[in-house]
């Protein structure tokens, strides 16, 4: 299956819709171990992205992802803005000029996006951040594509890995970001960044089938 400009626009619209739908939940998670703004900030950013999508229908995938990254950088603030902004911009640079992409292209784009997050955030796995959800998803996707799985299968197994990674942040003690100030008191709470990463991953899956249902909704622990 080939992914087109249309798919990418739909992915971003769905990501924006899921972030809007779960903004309060993300902010609640951030209230427990952060500074109570993750949902509010990401919702502002993705809403700004959606406004720009109309003008990008004739653009290439690289441009769309680059504009998405720039818009998130300019509107989100906090740590989430630079991290997601850098991720989308790196993926956009890799896919510059492309109007269709396949599984291997997506794997490569996810890989550079992941590197962008690691470099910008100076973060490692196990620090209770979005990386703990994103990294296993990217690895799972890449190996599924390398094993010749379909795009749909690869995406579904990657989403399961992201979800598992997100839940794995609950018992972790944070050593990066605002949650790190809490020390051991950060244990027992799901990381808001890992949770927003999960919703964005949800938006990538099943682009030609149904939108993800509320069964994916995450309850605050």
């Amino acid at each position: 299956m080939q992914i087109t400009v249309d798919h990418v626009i739909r992915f971003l619209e769905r990501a924006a819709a899921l972030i809007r739908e779960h903004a309060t939940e993300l902010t609640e998670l951030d209230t427990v171990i952060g500074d109570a703004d993750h949902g509010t900030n990401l919702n502002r950013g993705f809403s700004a992205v959606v406004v720009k999508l109309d003008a990008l229908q004739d653009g290439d995938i690289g441009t769309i992802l680059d504009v998405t990254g720039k818009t998130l950088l300019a509107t989100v603030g906090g740590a989430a803005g630079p991290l997601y902004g850098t991720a989308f911009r790196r993926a956009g640079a890799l896919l510059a000029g492309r109007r269709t992409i396949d599984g291997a292209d997506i794997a490569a784009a996810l890989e550079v996006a992941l590197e962008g997050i690691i470099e910008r955030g100076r973060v490692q796995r196990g620090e209770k951040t979005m990386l703990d959800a994103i990294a296993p998803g990217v690895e799972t996707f890449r190996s599924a594509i390398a094993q010749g799985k379909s795009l749909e299968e690869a995406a579904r197994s990657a989403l399961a890995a992201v979800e598992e990674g997100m839940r794995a942040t609950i018992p972790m003690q944070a050593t990066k970001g605002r949650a790190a100030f809490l020390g051991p008191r950060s244990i027992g709470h799901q990381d808001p960044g890992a949770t927003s990463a999960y919703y964005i991953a949800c938006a990538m899956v099943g682009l030609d089938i149904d939108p993800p249902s509320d069964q994916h909704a995450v309850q605050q622990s």
Partner: protein
Amino acid sequence: MSDTVVAQMAPGSAQVKMLINAADTVVSDALEGFAQAYPGMVRVMRDPDYVVRADAPLPQRVAIISGGGSGHEPMHVGYVGRGMLTAACPGAIFTSPTPDQILAATRVSASQAGVLYIIKNYAGDRMNFEIAIETLLTEGMSVASVVVADDIASPSRDLRRGAGATIIVEKIAGAAAEMGVSLAECAEVARRAERQSRSVGVALSACTIPALARSSFHLGDDEIEIGIGIHGEVGRQRATLAPVAQLVDHLCGALADDLGLREGDRTLALINGLGATTRMELYIVFCEVARWCATRRVVLERSLVGNYMTSLDMAGCTITFTRLDDELLQLWDAPVCTPALRWGV
């Protein structure tokens, strides 16, 4: 989001009243009001938002620029003016400003002498300033930065948050810039002020996040939170409320140990209210701090008592000690004329 003036009551938490129009226009409405309150002193620019000295850019002067989340008023916008910040970038509530804001503020206010950024040590603040700095370096701008990390309650040295020392570093860097020193000299003196400063905070109650319309955490009737940050995040340790003399003794002791403050050292003390604590209480805290200094034979050269770096409506205070030398003291005493800090003019 709530469109009512009185915020909605969330389950299990007390109703909080705020003088606002709507939660999502809080920052914008406050900025408009600030612009109208100080027309001769500052210019307030919108989309991207920043506040700049009315007389900027100043030729041959290093621009001193800071920024950070809103909700800490008067920081940072209140410190824009002669002898302190050239420009400030206010983010959303408790959210660092974006690179666009920082770049726009810099382009309007910086001269050939370059720009010094004063950045509080939070992951988000650092990343947004870093992205702006990367862009400016490719354009050939002379850029330096000082990261303020004075909060001793943070779990490790590289995680130390920027607290009260931010105001002191901004004042000292601004005074140096006003005297026309080079970017390297401004950065050196700002870093020295930062290295010589330590802060610690105590909260009696959490703050109300406008978008949530409720408290960011809950404290029992006799509980206090030691080691709070300025973002409504909970602190390191929960303790029982004690007479302030006992509390100040504990906090000042921790600051002195960390800073290596010894008999005969000269200091500046900043007693900063977090928003909902009365001046009366802050003076009581200061009285105990002064008593502590006298007992330890630490020379209290200067002091500042009031609300300088708040956390919305949080109750409590932060205490900052800065060890002074002749040059830092001279820069602290230099004239300053901003909406929130004014002397010698």
